[in-house]
């Protein structure tokens, strides 16, 4: 552990780790960038429009054009803003959105860090994402941004409580916080079947903690946290949010949709590899997020808070109790010594 960094073995290990990290981060980053394109195309199709079509074939290079435009823009610092924190906020957002991928398994035990507390780690990093929002609102030194940040932070923290409780009811029958163990427990039956209400709830909470519509009332372009952001900082924020959505959808796939497992372990479906199945499930969930955006009007801040505290949290808590009761009644509490 405490070996000097000049040791060739340690250096090689560090290099291998960096390569593995890049192998995950580059696809996720590109996915986050092109999610914007996919979202615009899907929304356009639902609204009987065409969507981006001018840059490259089918408009596929639109994210490049958008990114280039944002890079070319001037970065404006509001008067009296805290420049360091103002710049730190988007970086924190992107970093926290991506760090969750360290524990998400792409195959049996195939994670960058196969932590025994992987689920806890993911819950922690997604909770920390609130820092990106609150730092951005505070550093801008503008009351609109700050008020929006307070609201967004309150909403994210509220739904994090629900997410934590959903995690508990999923983890209870598995008896492990290790994500690989959670996936392997779904070999016979994906958890989406017994935990369907919790899957819906988790998805709603995912939209809420990643500032997705219909919970982005505090994020309208003129009244949101990002109101003072421009140029690269703004682009990074948007990228970070897309990445956060990807990460949360990956967590939802792992918890409810069997992660890297194919739908049935027979015949040709097993030919596709684990990462491909995970990617497919994540893409499906993200399409669902866009679909919901097209169908559901925004919730006011107080409505979002009502959903969190009067619906999501009590329902998740009740489900924990029910799950525990069922496990005890069936005598299948994991780790417990069978009675008698």
């Amino acid at each position: 552990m405490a070996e000097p960094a000049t040791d060739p073995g340690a250096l090689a290990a560090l290099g291998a780790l960096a390569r593995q990290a890049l192998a995950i981060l580059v696809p996720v980053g590109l996915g986050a960038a092109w999610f914007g394109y996919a979202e615009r195309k899907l929304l356009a199709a639902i609204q009987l429009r065409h969507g981006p079509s001018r840059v490259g074939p089918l408009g596929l290079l639109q994210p490049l054009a958008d990114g280039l435009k944002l890079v070319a823009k001037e970065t404006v610092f509001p008067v009296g803003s805290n420049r360091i924190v103002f710049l730190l906020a988007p970086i924190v957002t992107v970093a926290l959105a991506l760090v969750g991928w360290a524990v998400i398994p792409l195959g049996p035990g195939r994670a960058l860090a196969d932590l025994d507390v992987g689920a806890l780690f993911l819950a922690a990093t997604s909770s920390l994402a609130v820092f990106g929002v609150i730092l951005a609102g505070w550093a801008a030194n503008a009351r609109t941004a700050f008020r929006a940040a307070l609201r967004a932070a309150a909403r994210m923290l509220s739904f994090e409580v629900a997410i934590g409780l959903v995690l508990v009811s999923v983890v209870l029958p598995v008896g492990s916080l290790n994500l690989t163990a959670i996936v392997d427990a779904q070999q016979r039956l994906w958890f989406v079947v017994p935990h369907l209400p919790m899957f819906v709830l988790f998805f709603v909470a995912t939209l809420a903690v990643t500032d997705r519509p219909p919970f982005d009332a505090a994020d309208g372009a003129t009244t949101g946290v990002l109101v003072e952001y421009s140029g690269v900082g703004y682009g990074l924020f948007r990228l970070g949010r897309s990445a956060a959505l990807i990460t949360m959808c990956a967590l939802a796939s792992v918890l409810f949709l069997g992660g890297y497992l194919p739908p049935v372990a027979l015949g040709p479906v097993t030919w596709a590899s684990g990462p491909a199945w995970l990617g497919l499930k994540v893409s499906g969930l993200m399409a669902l997020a866009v679909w919901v955006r097209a169908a559901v009007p925004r919730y006011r801040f107080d409505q979002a808070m009502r959903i969190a505290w009067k619906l999501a949290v009590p329902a998740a808590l009740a489900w924990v109790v029910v799950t525990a009761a069922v496990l005890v009644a069936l005598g299948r509490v994991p780790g417990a010594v069978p009675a008698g």
Partner: protein
Amino acid sequence: MLDTAARGLLLIDLVRGLGLTLAALVRPKAARADPNVMAPQAPGVRGEPALRRDAVGVERCIACKLCEAVCPALAITLESAVDDRRRATRFDLDLSRCVFCGLCQEACPVAAIALGPNIEVATESREELCYARDRLLATGDHREPAIGAGFGPTAVRGALRPHPPQGRTPLPPT
């Protein structure tokens, strides 16, 4: 009340909304693929001005300067000469002044000037919008099929062409 609770709990309204949007997803698009497909044009649309030739290819304009006189925007400048007939030695039309009112077309006794169907006349400089005689004639040659259809085979005077007298004509089906 139970009904309301059940609807809320089962997310009935939410699912119906999702169904509605899903149905829209597979419907044909209502929007035009804009720069690639032109907007439908009403008959008699007044676009880029042009100078026309008669059936044997002789320029119609007799340089009577009625259009220059009637133009409310002072967009037209004419100089005339007489050799074997009256003709315009100079016919300048400043499109950046033109208001596409069509009064020149109404005034012309020989159906020489006409507003064609082309409405995409944007340029990168004002100079390019100053149309000289040759440019107007070339436009006329290019657009004659569309312009001539509005005048009829034997019409001489601009006022004789079939023009929608009043009100708006419905757009042709796309």
